[in-house]
């Protein structure tokens, strides 16, 4: 079979695979360069650093006050995950089970904050938050980060909820369960994989969300990615290796959660779950 293919087609296949390999190699090398540099003593004019050390991690930890930054990051991310779950899951339930007038409009309303990039709505949003005295502190950062994540949870959860047999809920209702007990005893246990997947993706996205945090954070409410941005932007002030050490810490905090998330979702879902709704 393979030999029947014309030479042109085989050449074309080779070109395509070469492109894939070239891309993947460059991505890996880009990330590896950060890692190698963060452990290097001095790296100049050679393929690898002159020697290896871990002292940049200690330096970065102190220079960038990473202890405080990490606490802020986890507080922000924790609050965003919790609140987007609390707001998003019930809304998704209503949208999955009821067919009321204006439902399509509501779905469009939830699609917009996901399709419009944060830079475009971030500045007006930050202006409103600052006017409400919510800018420049943790609550502002959390509120701003919730804008894309609440719709994300809603849109991801709708298909999960639609998969559950409505007769189970009807049975719970017959036995006298109200909506609150229905949620606690029936829906949440059955939806755990879906909720976990949605919230893990929210977690990963919030750690990496630069723009909205950047626009709303004050000096005490910067997350790790914003601190990293400032450090990279002011390169020359700090040693490059300690910036890279921070970058590696940032990578680890994101990738650990990504690996956990990938146990529950297929990689293509990370970008497509929601976009399918858009078609």
């Amino acid at each position, binding site marked *: 079979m393979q030999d029947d293919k014309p030479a042109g087609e085989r050449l074309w296949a080779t070109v395509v695979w070469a492109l894939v390999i070239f891309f993947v190699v460059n991505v890996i090398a880009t990330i590896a360069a950060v890692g190698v540099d963060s452990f290097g003593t001095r790296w100049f004019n050679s393929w690898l650093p002159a020697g290896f050390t871990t002292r940049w991690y200690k330096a970065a930890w102190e220079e960038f006050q990473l202890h405080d930054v990490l606490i802020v990051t986890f507080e922000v991310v924790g609050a965003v995950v919790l609140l987007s779950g609390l707001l998003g899951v019930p809304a998704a339930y209503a949208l999955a089970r009821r067919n009321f007038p204006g439902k399509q409009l509501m779905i469009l309303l939830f699609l917009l904050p996901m399709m419009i990039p944060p830079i475009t709505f971030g500045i007006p949003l930050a202006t409103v938050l600052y006017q409400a005295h919510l800018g420049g502190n943790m609550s502002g950062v959390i509120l701003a980060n919730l*804008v894309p994540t*609440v719709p994300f949870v809603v849109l991801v959860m709708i298909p999960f909820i639609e998969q559950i047999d409505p007769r189970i809920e009807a049975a719970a209702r017959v036995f006298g369960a109200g909506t609150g007990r229905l949620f606690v005893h029936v829906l949440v246990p059955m939806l755990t994989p879906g909720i976990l997947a949605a919230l893990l993706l929210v977690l990963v996205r919030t750690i990496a969300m630069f723009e909205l945090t950047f626009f709303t954070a004050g000096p005490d409410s910067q997350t790790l990615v914003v601190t990293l941005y400032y450090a*990279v932007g002011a390169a020359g002030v700090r040693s490059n290796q300690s910036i890279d050490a921070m970058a590696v810490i940032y990578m680890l905090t994101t990738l650990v959660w990504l690996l956990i998330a*990938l146990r529950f979702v297929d990689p293509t879902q990370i970008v*497509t779950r929601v976009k399918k709704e858009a078609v």
Partner: protein
Amino acid sequence: MSEAALSKPTERPPLRVRLALRDIDGVTLLVVPAVVFVLLLFIYPFAYGLVLSFLPKKGGWLANYAKFFSDPFLYDTIWSTFRLAIPATLINVLVSVPIALRVRHMRHRRVLTTLLVVPITLGTVLIAQGLLIYLGPQGWFNRVLAVVGIGHVRLVHNYTGVMLSLIMSGFPFTFLLTLSYLTGIDPSLEQAAATLGAKARARFVHILLPLLAQGLAINMCLSFVQTFSVFPSAVLLGAPAGETRVISIAAYQAAYEQYDYSMASAVAMIMGFCQLGVVILILAGRNFLYRGSAAGGKG
């Protein structure tokens, strides 16, 4: 009173029942908090920004827009953004199609898709720092070029650096999206065409492309909107005062360096309208090209 109460239900059921008939009841109300949240923190700020952009610090209601379109330092940002966004979008979307066509039959597809999720997850700031080292004058990329004999190429702090970062963080996204559209097409359609003797090229042009057009248009819109709002990599990897002074930098400077929120809102609105305009053009172009055959595919 009692007569009215008795006769009324026959004509008109109580409000509660009428609402329930239209599927509005206690469960429906669960959607309210999320909707109120999006209205308050997304729709309201957008509307507020639009109004604020017409209330400049000084001058008439159009003063911000007049200033933007008369100052080359400001209106040139539109051009420098398009100059990055259009090639990056075209490269990302067009290259993703042949690769997705190959990869969909791959056995260990999940390994590749997992690898590609990593740059999306890490975000643009980390990619920028990585590329600064990797593509820098002493970086591995330039070293390989030197070994091959091409010599030193300047790849960062200019247009190329930003373009490469847009491809590195944007391509995985467009690729995964194209792949999911492609795998959604019923394979029996292609097999039928192959049975009837259609070659790979004919199968692609006459079967897959029309079915994919809808998805590619959406993909192109999303990709364009993302690249048009490039910010951290334009600052870190580009020349933010020169050729990669994109429109988001102008908006940022108005808001956080001149504290002119009215002007910043105007720039943000101009950015939004540029994005909207291109999205409408793409969607209109799709209808023009593939009227009637875009249906199906996903089923």
